[in-house]
């Protein structure tokens, strides 16, 4: 009875409508990606198609002029690692501390963490330039120092992922239980709370990696080399290779997010 009522009066679209909409939008969104693939397969002046460039990339036969690109990929991976480290060392303990001891500060922390959405990266760069002239005097001008700025850029995403996890466990009861059994604060943090927060932390780390690998604005205007700025430079020398690497990094980020989705849906199941 309920079933038939749902069927005829359900607000959801009919099967046909659903697939027409998804098909049309999907097709429009596939076009630029298809044209990118087509572009990388184009033969030179004589026309036709060739997979030579993909072969060159995958067999590691890229000439020395692309050394810059490998360096840039290394830089981006290093930046991703340092950004995740900054997040783990600075943000996670602070969020746990606020949840446990300063519940009144929660809204303040949320406001601060979501603030980077309101302040465009391009605005931040204007003020970061003088800050970085001091930073490079203290830490040298290594590319990893850029991770300080990236830590700020990923704050909103990291905060949301971790806070969702914090809300789903009872931090207070867990830590009081551990304390009453004689555990020190270190044990509470590393053996009780962090294991319970691993899904949120994992999701936050993945999204941080995706954001860092796609970051262009800050690196480009502070004259540092990362994956995106190097792609633009390579594009001037050999646009085909640049597009191949853009497609590969896109694919990498997609797989990363599918993994996040899996992690998220597992945690949803556990909760229900």
């Amino acid at each position: 009875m309920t079933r038939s009522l749902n069927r005829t009066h359900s607000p959801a679209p009919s099967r046909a409508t659903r697939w027409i909409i998804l098909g049309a939008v999907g097709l429009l969104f596939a076009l630029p990606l298809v044209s990118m693939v087509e572009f990388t397969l184009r033969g030179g002046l004589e026309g036709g198609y060739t997979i030579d460039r993909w072969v060159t990339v995958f067999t590691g036969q890229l000439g020395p002029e692309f050394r810059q690109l490998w360096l840039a990929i290394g830089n981006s991976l290093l930046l991703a690692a340092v950004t995740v480290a900054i997040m783990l060392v600075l943000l996670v303990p602070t969020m746990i501390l606020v949840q446990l001891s300063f519940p009144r500060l929660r809204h303040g922390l949320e406001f601060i963490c979501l603030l980077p959405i309101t302040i465009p990266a391009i605005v931040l760069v204007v003020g970061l330039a003088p800050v970085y002239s001091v930073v490079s005097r203290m830490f040298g001008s290594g590319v990893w120092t850029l991770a300080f700025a990236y830590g700020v850029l990923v704050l909103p995403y990291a905060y949301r992922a971790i806070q969702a996890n914090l809300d789903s466990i009872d931090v207070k009861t867990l830590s009081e239980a551990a304390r009453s059994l004689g555990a020190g604060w270190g044990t509470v943090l590393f053996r009780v709370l962090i294991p319970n927060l691993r899904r949120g932390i994992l999701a936050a780390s993945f999204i941080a990696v995706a954001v860092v690998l796609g970051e262009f604005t800050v690196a480009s205007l502070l004259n540092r080399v990362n994956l995106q700025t190097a792609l633009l430079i390579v594009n001037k020398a050999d646009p085909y290779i640049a597009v191949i690497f853009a497609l590969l990094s896109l694919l990498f980020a997609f797989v990363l997010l599918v993994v996040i989705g899996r992690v998220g849906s597992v945690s949803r199941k556990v909760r229900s």
Partner: protein
Amino acid sequence: MRYLGLAPFGAYVLLFLALPTLLAVGTGFVDGDGALTASNIEALLDPVILTVFWNSIWLSALTAVTGAVLGALVCYALLETRPDGVLRSIVDSASGVLAQFGGVMLAFAFVSLIGIQGLLRVILQNNFGIDIYADGVWLYEVPGLVLPYIYFQVPLMIIVFLPALEALKPQWAEASATLGGTRATYWWRIGIPVLMPSFIGSLLLLFANAFSSYATAAALTSQGQGIVPLQIRAALTSETVLGRENLAGALALGMIVVMTLVMVLYSRLQRRASRWQQR
């Protein structure tokens, strides 16, 4: 003493979020020698700068509205699909990538699609006799940003609007059906009014997203100065724009003012929208 644990994060946020923001906005009020001046702020009223702000605003508004409508349509099509199914998994991840990962990649994509030698451009030209560049090449000007921007706006809309659509209670549909309402009555009298605050809120978020976006435009036009972020680039890389130093600071201030207005409106609407989303 108890507050000492908050110090590391506090110091970090102060140094890399608060200080840069204050510096960015503050430099707008001083000249090259550090003396207070209003000339940078006056420069915001320069017709060139006003045009640039206007470009940014109409570009953001146009792509936000288009993106919001298309994105909402996709969300509607996804209604009552299994949240942990394969379809949703693919749509969620693809939206995440395309919304986050734009920038340089998007510029490449649209050059390969509708550049001078682009796939679609050549097909339209050779097979249908349509020359999309009959009035000149617009891909590298401000109008050329419309399509790439829509390309990252739709995925963002899906990410932010889908939760609101899923929070619609099935009981409302049942109640409407019991009282003899059709699907059209349900959407017209219940669904759309309930979703309106979320929809406008998402629209504002999309506007903010486009307004602050820099990478796509920078990658597409290496010399262009048509929108505010590009104007900031020009002001940062050469000190002589309009003969004024620290113009970048004034432009940054202008951007912050627009963004703050949008985000204040957004949080108000969000509060209204959350009334219907309590479980």
